[in-house]
């Protein structure tokens, strides 16, 4: 099922509460990102793309599912941009749409192992589905 609703930079501002135009492209966030290698769009590019209104590209990225919500980027940003909030806002605009859950409850049983804590399942379902 494809994404039906158009999303604008103003929507991301409203959901995240973060003004991406404050970003000065210093790259500290990406320098701090422990998952940089896996992020097809690293946090400093994510911020500028929000500012440029390239939201559809961000909605189709892998970065929105690979961000760890570790807040290293937000902590180290000298301009209080909080890239983690921008990434979460874009992910929300995807998974809130019909048929766009990234992780489905049916897929959980095969991912379980003996030691996996409930917290992992609760957190992943909160991040990846609505």
């Amino acid at each position: 099922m494809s994404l039906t609703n158009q999303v604008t930079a103003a929507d991301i501002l409203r959901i995240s509460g973060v003004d991406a135009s404050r970003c000065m492209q210093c790259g500290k966030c990406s320098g701090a990102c422990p998952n940089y290698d896996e992020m097809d769009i690293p946090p400093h590019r994510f911020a500028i793309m929000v500012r440029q209104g390239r939201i559809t590209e961000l909605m189709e990225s892998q970065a929105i599912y690979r961000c760890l919500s570790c807040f290293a980027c937000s902590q180290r940003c000298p301009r209080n941009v909080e890239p983690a909030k921008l990434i979460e806002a874009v992910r929300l605009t995807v998974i809130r749409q019909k048929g766009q859950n990234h992780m489905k409850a049916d897929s959980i049983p095969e991912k379980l192992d003996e030691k996996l804590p409930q917290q992992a399942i609760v957190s992943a379902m909160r991040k990846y589905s609505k």
Partner: protein
Amino acid sequence: MKYSYYPGCTLKTKAKDLDRYGRLCAEKLGIILEEPDNWQCCGGVYPQGEDEIATKLSSVRALADAKEKGQDLVTLCSACHHVLKRVNHDMKQNETIRLRANNYLKLDSPYQGETNVIHYLEMLRDKVGFDNLKKAVVNPQTDRKIAPYYGCLLLRPGKVMAFDDPEDPRIMEDFIRAIGATPVKYSQRNECCGGYLTLENKKAAQKRAGAVVDSAEQAGADLMITACPLCLYNLDANVPEGSVPVQYFTEILAEALGVKEEV
């Protein structure tokens, strides 16, 4: 000393050790932890969206319950602590979230972020005092070199969590000294373990956990300690076999206080 105590879902299931050792040690230290009757799961992750209201309500209920009892709210799981503390901050600072959450909940008096949320480690540092903790130790862990694993959730964002210096924390090192052991400092102590990514991209999660454990090993640790069930899982199940073991900090505390056998 009497506190409200929010255990969270995982401490009732896979992380029973974190909970039961925590309770035993509190008792030994003369602290009463009262679990509210009707707490609900915090959701595991803080809902960052400003328009996410329903996902914040379980936290507000626990916070409001503690306020009613006039108690500080103690947490043990890093994730619960993170969620409750940030939602509490929203209820204090964010007018829209406060209004909308209160509209849903219709409490007798609106909740406005009055409750003080403290992590068990903060309780040890600020309420008990590490000096007093040291005096209560009967089995000092003198031969142990312990690597404290902070992870992300206790520390960041520093302005909201106000737990310790987010870039150079020391509370866990001080805790380790108080129980007579030697803290091992290593570069990855406040870098992410991979978190919930273990369910989405196992390989990337393994890479993250591997880097953390490797860093602790290189620094000469014989044990790692954590306050988070998901960190414990990643640092245990997502690393090569035979890596340095990881334990809940409450377990080593129970050993030091001589109450571990009672379990």
